[in-house]
């Protein structure tokens, strides 16, 4: 007969882990999990903020930036003006269209949920790039998969890809496979799809060859195929790749946000 010791570590592990898996699967643990998460969320936010601060300083030092702060301020200023400009252009266009219909709709009047970033999550810890961020708002706050997430300047930084009752995972626009329906702010309103590139920049694909794109063009969300409204700035075109024998042309976009500095974001509830 097999003797089982009372304090056998194997037995302890199998029983406790089995119970946890079972109770989690059934959903009995959900209130306890929510309680525990709400308990650590404030400190997580604070720790993340410290980590993010350290990351920004480290990056600034790495770039030998006495000028970094200045550049950062100017980037913010440019981002703000770009958003303003984009909004005004869009308002003007829409104004023209809607004037005839006398059906004015206020632009950028979104309902948003303010969220704090509490952590970054990579597929694996080993490997720096492609990190998603975890925010402290979830299903209980009305956050759903596919909702857009914007920075405090109003620039779209990503979209919600997974939710739990009190937290949600957001993919950043620079992460590969984080795709957004996009449009260029040119005369033709050229449409395409943006996708992250190596966790550093954004590429815009599926742009028809006949469309004219130039560096400096602003790319915004097109509002197609999802819960993300039209007109949110994604980035600025920094390079265009066009081959005459290809059906599509591509462009590389510079994100207008420093993702290392992100600590507070807003989720847009459509």
């Amino acid at each position, binding site marked *: 007969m097999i003797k089982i010791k009372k304090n056998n570590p194997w037995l302890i592990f199998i029983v406790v882990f089995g119970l946890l898996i079972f109770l989690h699967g059934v959903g009995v643990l959900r209130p306890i999990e929510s309680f525990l998460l709400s308990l650590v969320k404030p400190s997580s936010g604070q720790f993340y903020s410290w980590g993010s601060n350290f990351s920004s300083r480290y990056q600034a030092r790495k770039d030998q930036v006495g000028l970094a702060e200045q550049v950062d301020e100017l980037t913010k200023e440019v981002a703000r003006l770009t958003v303003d400009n984009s909004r005004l252009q869009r308002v003007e266009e829409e104004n023209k269209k809607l004037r005839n219909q006398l059906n004015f709709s206020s632009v950028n009047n979104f309902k948003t949920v303010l969220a704090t970033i509490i*952590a970054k999550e990579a*597929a694996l810890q*080993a490997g720096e790039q492609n990190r998603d961020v*975890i925010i402290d708002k979830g299903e209980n706050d009305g956050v759903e998969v596919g909702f857009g997430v914007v920075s405090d300047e109003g620039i779209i930084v990503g979209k919600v890809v997974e939710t739990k009752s009190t937290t949600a995972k957001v993919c950043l626009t620079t992460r590969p496979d984080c795709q957004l329906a996009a449009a260029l702010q040119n005369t033709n309103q050229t449409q395409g799809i943006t996708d992250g590139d190596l966790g550093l920049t954004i590429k815009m694909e599926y742009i028809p060859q006949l469309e004219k794109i130039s560096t400096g063009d602003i790319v915004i969300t097109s509002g197609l195929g999802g819960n993300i409204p039209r007109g949110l700035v994604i980035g600025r075109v920094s390079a265009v790749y066009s081959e005459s024998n290809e059906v599509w042309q591509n462009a590389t976009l510079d994100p207008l946000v420093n993702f290392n500095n992100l600590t507070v974001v807003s989720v847009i509830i459509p």
Partner: protein
Amino acid sequence: MFKKIWQIIIFIIFISFLAVIQFSLISAAPGIFGQINLGLLVLIFTLFFFGFRASIFLVLLFGFWFDLMTFKFFGFYTISLFFSALLGYWILNNWLTNRSLYSFLALMFITTVFYNFFSALLFYFTAPERSFLLGSGDFWLGLGYQLIWNLLAAILLFNLATTLIKKLKPFFLEKNTVL
């Protein structure tokens, strides 16, 4: 009895604190600093100095917190840590002594490599996107950084432990000679 309860409470608070630090602070840290793996480090330390039973409690607690806070399937971290502890225990039981710095370093090296390989494979077979992380340069770079951190921390922790724990103090076998 009362002392034991206090010890358990302090253990739970300490491990929970470590889990939150790893989850929020280290995940946001840049470059090499983002590769510190506190859970694995403390796990190997516990296994080496306090035995398999204590390390199982650590696996359950740290794994639970991480499974709760992250978006991988529930059990991902507990399973990865458990198998790493299991391998560490087997190696320690069959091949290594628990009184030498070199043993501690070897154990740290093997379990760190195993943990990263195991979790990469587990991720590959369970994640819907199925990205094969072992083929990515970032994975190998991250593993290298993690090894550097863990081995440095192992040297530090071992020397700290030798000053605090009696059983690790060096001693000499003296032969009484009659003149």
